[in-house]
Each structure stands twice: as C-alpha cells, then as structure tokens.
C-alpha cells in the first residue's frame, strides 16, 4: 500500500538528488548546468505527480469525462519550465564567456587562473 502510494515520489526524489549531486560535485561547468536541468525537471515531475488524480483525464473540458487532473500544478510547471530554460540559456552564455576569458570550463582551472583556491 505504502509503496504504491508513494513510490512515484521516491523515484522523483532520487532523480532530484542525482541532479543536485551533479551540480555540487562536478567541476565541469557544462555538467553542472546539465545537473541543474535534471534537478529542475525532476521537481517538475514531482509537481505533475501531485496534480495527478487517479483515473483523471487531461484538464481540457470535454463531454466524455468528468474527472480531470488538477490543472493548477500544470500551470505552475509551465511557468517553471520557462524559467528553467531561461536560466539554462543564461548559464550557457556565461559559460561561453568564461571559456573565452579563462580558456577552460573546469572549475579548478578557473580558480587557479584567478589565484584563489
């Protein structure tokens, strides 16, 4: 019972943690951004799971059904996805400039380049 009720969330949490791990542990900036992406996407999955109603259909009204998924999380996640891609684009642009300025996208090289550790 418990498993079937919550496994979804658990897997999502594992996904989040994988992403978070990448962000913290990886020294490569691009990898960090990928990690960030995975982290965020997993949060999206979590929200959508919250919005799921057993047997519910997509929240576009039709004569065929009366049970719909909760539309609110969908709306929120639409916004969050946009925020995610915006962040990613900005992060990648920053990485390109960092690469031009430092000649590397590895955190160690950058720190060494600035003489701080």
């Amino acid at each position, binding site marked *: 019972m418990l498993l079937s009720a919550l496994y979804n969330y658990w897997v999502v949490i594992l996904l989040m943690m994988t992403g978070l791990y990448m962000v913290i542990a990886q020294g490569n*900036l691009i990898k960090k951004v990928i990690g960030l992406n995975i982290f965020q996407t997993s949060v999206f999955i*979590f929200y959508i799971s*919250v919005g799921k109603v057993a047997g519910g259909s997509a929240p576009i009204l039709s004569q065929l059904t009366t049970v719909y998924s909760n539309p609110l*999380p969908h709306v929120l996640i639409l916004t969050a996805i946009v*925020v995610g891609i915006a*962040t990613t684009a900005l992060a990648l642009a920053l990485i390109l*400039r960092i690469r031009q300025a*430092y000649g590397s996208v590895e955190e160690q090289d950058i720190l060494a380049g600035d003489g701080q550790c």
Partner: protein
Amino acid sequence: MLTHLPILQVILPLVAAPSCMILQRSRLSWLFTVLVSLAAFVVSALLLQQVMAEGVIRYSLGGWDAPWGIEYRIDALNAWVLFIVTAVSTAVIAAARTSIEAELGASRQTVFYTLYLLCFAGLLGIVATGDVFNVFVFLEISSLSTYALIAMGRDRRALWSAFQYLVLGTIGATFILIGIGFLYMMTGTLNMLDLAERLPAVESSTAVLAAFAFILVGICLKLALFPLHLWLPNAYSNAPSIVTAFLAATATKVALYLLVRFTVTVFGIDFSLSALPLQSLFILLGLAGVFVGSAVAIYQSNIKRMLAYSSVAQIGYMIIGIGISTVVGLQATLLHLFNHALMKAALFLALAGVAYRIGGCSLEQIRGLGRSMPWTMGAIAIGGASLVGMPLTAGFISKWYLIAASIDSGFWPLALLIVAGSLLSAVYVWRLVEAGYLREPQSGQLAAEPGEAPLGLLIPTWILVLANLYFGVETSLPVSVTEMAATYLLGGAP
C-alpha cells in the same frame, strides 16, 4: 487611480523595461530609468502613507479574488520594504550615468538599464505579492537580471562570480519551489493568507516541516546567511559599482523580507519557533555571520570585498533580530533593513566615485584620498560610522533596538556579543578611514591628483549620507512604521 497603487508599483518598472529596450539611446534610457524609479518611489510613498492610515490594502489581479487568483496584499511590512527599495534605487540610478559610461561599452548601456529595471521590478514584485508562487516567478526575474548585471563587470572574475551565483541562486530558487510544492500538496492553495489559515490543520505533518525547511534554506541561500554566503563577496566585488550599490542595498533586504514573511505570516511564528530550534539557530547563525563576516572583512584589501563581507555580518544582525522574535527584535530587524540599505548604498556609491576617478578601490589606492577627494572620502567616513553604529547615525538606532531587544528578552550575553561584533566592524571601517586620512598617497602612482567624483555621482551619494545622519537623529518615521509592522506581524490579528 489610487486604488491601483499596489499594482502600479510593480507594473510600472515591469512595462518600462521593454520600453527602455526600444529607446536605444543610452542617455535617454538612463533618464527614462531615473524617471521610472522616481515614479515608483512616489507610488511607494503614497502606498506607505495609505497603509499607515487605513491598514492593509488588498488588490486582486485580474479581478479574481484570492485564493483563485493572485492578490497583492500590502501591509506595513511590504509597504516599508517597497519604500526602502524604491528610495535606494532612485538614488542609485540617479548616480549611475557617469559610472556606467565609464565601466560599460556604449552598446551595452541600454541593455544595462533595461536589465536594471527588470531587476527592480522583480524585487518589487517579490515584496508586493501575496501569492507564494508569484514570489518564485518574480524571484527569478530579479535573479536572472542580477546574474546578467553582475556579469557586466569589467573583470573576468565577474563572469565566474555571476556563474557561481547563478548555480547557487537556482538551487535556492528550486528549493523554494519544492517547498511551495509541498505546501500546495498539503493545503491546496498558494495564497499566503489562505495558507496561514489552512496550515495549522496539517502542521504536525512532516511534509509541512520539510516544506518549511526547504523554503528556509532556499531563502537563506538568496539571503547569503552565514554558511550559505559564499557567493556574495565575489558577486559584490566584481559587479559594476552601480550594480553592487543597488544589490547590496536591496537584494538581500528583499530576501530578508521573504524570510520574515514566510516564518511569521505564512507559517506563523509559533509554528516556526516550535518546528525547528529556529530561535537558537537564527541567533547562532546570525552571530556566526557577524563574527566571521566582520573578521574576514578586516583582512580584505579590496574595499568592495570588505564591504561585501560586512554585508554578510549585517545580515547576521538582522537574523538575530528575527531570532529574538519579540516585537522589539523584529522591529530592530526592520529598522536595520532600512538603515543598512541607506549606509551600504551610500558607501558603495562613494566607492563607485572612487573607482571612477582612480580606477580601482583597494586600500592602497585610497591612501590620502581625504585630501584629493574630500567629499567622497567624507561620505565613506560617515557611511562607515553608520555601519559601526556610531550615535547620531542611522546605524546606531538599529543597533540600539537590537541590543534593547536582546536585553529585554533576557539574552544579556547576546547584547554583549552584538556590540563586540560592531567593534569588529569598527576595526575595518577604521582601516578605511586611516587609509583615507592618515596615510600619505602612494608616491608616483598617479600622475595627477584625482579630482572629486563627478557631481552626478556625488549628489546622490551625499543625499544618502545625509539620510544616514537624518535618520540617526529624527527617527519617528522608521520607528513608527517598523513598530506598526512588527506589532501587526506578531499580533496575530490577520
């Protein structure tokens, strides 16, 4: 039109930003930005007056009542923070032109002002809204523009700092998002007041606790609370001077506002204090921030970096105020919010003037500046005095309230530690003053003596400096507003 004030506050800069983008001419867009900021300031002043006179203002966006739609809800706290942000922003942006012309290429200036307006609008949006998800959206507007603004710094380190901030900021924002998700899951609503009403029914659940923890950590990342502060010194010291002045005076303030809003309004102070050992946590972290921040600041030779660490310390003070969690404590926090904004804006603007003339601001470079740039150095000295908490400056008032609050609630040692902390700040401020007044300028470093900073920069700086003095002497406005806000927040009356 008066009924639309809450939304005008945010929508004005928000819509102005794309318009500014279309203007294309940099001087014009500067002027436009100044006017918009000024208008926002007027709106916030009106709002503050209205709130003080009539109490809470609610505004339903799209005409949909909360919790179905998003509502703006302005009480004394929001109005106060809005007032601070707009006031500082107006002063900073008015000073911006010469500094920005010197630090950015011509093609990037319009973009700079647009991003500035966006950041400004984002911060205001965070403060004005009464909807937790809306907070997230506007948090991202302000964050993204902040990253871009920081990256405009001259040094390549600015890029790296912006990236670091971006990663940490995004983690923080995502944490907040997770927290909001949990809250929504447990209550079915996103409206702050509605949440406050519905949370007590489920507050024993671990999910609510986790939501609280996530939101807390997320905000503290943005706030640069002590162990999570690592992004801040880099970001502040490498951003363009004007950006530093703006961010130091507003961004952390808004994050602090969020912290207060969530712990006190949404979760309720009783829950917040009982759920986690928050009181001791805040006080300990605050103290650690005060001491570590100040101690590290003492050893900095780059003044921007020194003041950035000092910000970490000052945030510590504000957190302590929340940790004390009495009316006076909260009032001290809110007062310091205002005073710290005033002093940091003044200091960083003065530094912008120094950087404009000398091209840098290390302790070595400002040697003997008291003679060549007396007004600028005077601003730094007075701002520094305010930072230390000298009597008759604004800084004293908030420190006073903080000490009073800690004694009042029986934390005697805390009062001692607080003043010990401000002693540390006296040390680094003294290093500034000593370098500026008591040391001879480095010989042969500069061909000609640097003149005074340009008037455009100097006047706003001094307006802020005088505000520091004025509000150190005539405190009725901040004291009455913060008292109202604090009693309202803790009074329990919705």
